[in-house]
């Protein structure tokens, strides 16, 4: 059962990623990206990481896609067709990314990953909150604080960049 769900989810992810990078309408590309992010949240649900899947759905699918659609609307590109890309550029892109896929997959299949049978720690919201604010060995207080400063800096930077300059 889980295998079938995994195949469906990866089919959705790969097909809609391809459509995102190849479609001619920009608004459609944003909607296809939404499907990709939703299917990724499904993969996290399969791993039993419920909180991460919820974060993925709210921040990515709810926040970033809406931000992208806003920017499309603000720059008046709703119904526009994207420029045709010349064949040389497409060929170069296909060759380089195909080479990359070939290299990574051949390395991957020559490496032996041994799946661990250790007991999984609880991925409940309770444990996650404790770990984020703990000072001990498995605590993540430092990256948590760093990322809060980063978010503040990004917020101030976005406001300063986007505000209109008064003469």
């Amino acid at each position, binding site marked *: 059962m889980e295998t079938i769900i995994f195949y469906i989810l990866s089919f959705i992810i790969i097909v809609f990623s391809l459509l995102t990078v190849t479609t001619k309408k*920009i608004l459609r590309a944003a909607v296809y990206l939404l499907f990709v992010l939703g299917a990724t949240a499904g993969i996290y649900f399969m791993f039993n990481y419920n909180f991460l899947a919820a974060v993925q759905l709210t*921040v990515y699918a709810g926040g970033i896609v809406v931000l992208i659609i806003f*920017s499309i609307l603000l720059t008046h590109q709703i119904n526009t067709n994207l420029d045709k890309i010349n064949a040389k550029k497409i060929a170069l892109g296909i060759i380089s990314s195909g080479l990359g896929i070939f290299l990574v997959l051949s390395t991957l299949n020559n490496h032996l990953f041994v799946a*661990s049978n250790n007991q999984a720690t609880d991925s409940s919201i309770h444990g996650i909150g404790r770990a984020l604010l703990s000072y001990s060995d498995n605590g993540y207080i430092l990256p948590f604080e760093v990322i809060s400063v980063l978010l503040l800096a990004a917020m101030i930077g976005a406001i300063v960049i986007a505000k209109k300059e008064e003469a």
Partner: protein
Amino acid sequence: MIEGISIYYILTMSTIMFFIGAYGFLTRKNLITMLMSIELVLNAVNINFVAFNKYLYPENMQGHFFGMFIIGIAAAEAAVAIAIIINIYIMKLNDYFKEKNIDYCCSSRR
């Protein structure tokens, strides 16, 4: 780990997704679609983190937490990038780019 699904399947899927994003970044001309390709790449990396965590080190949660931090960084990056894109668009409206005859943003035609 999950019964019936090897880690190789998940890594193969995320590799393909990563290079589709790289292809989009190389071929697209519009800034917003390039941003979407970057989101695809970040998402593929995130799946890798979580898969390694789940299959190889299930007793720790490091991949899970760094996946969360990457999502936060992606949100910050998208906010700043979209502010820059809108600013470039306003400058283009002011004929700033027209006199220099270069086309950064919004190179699409009606």
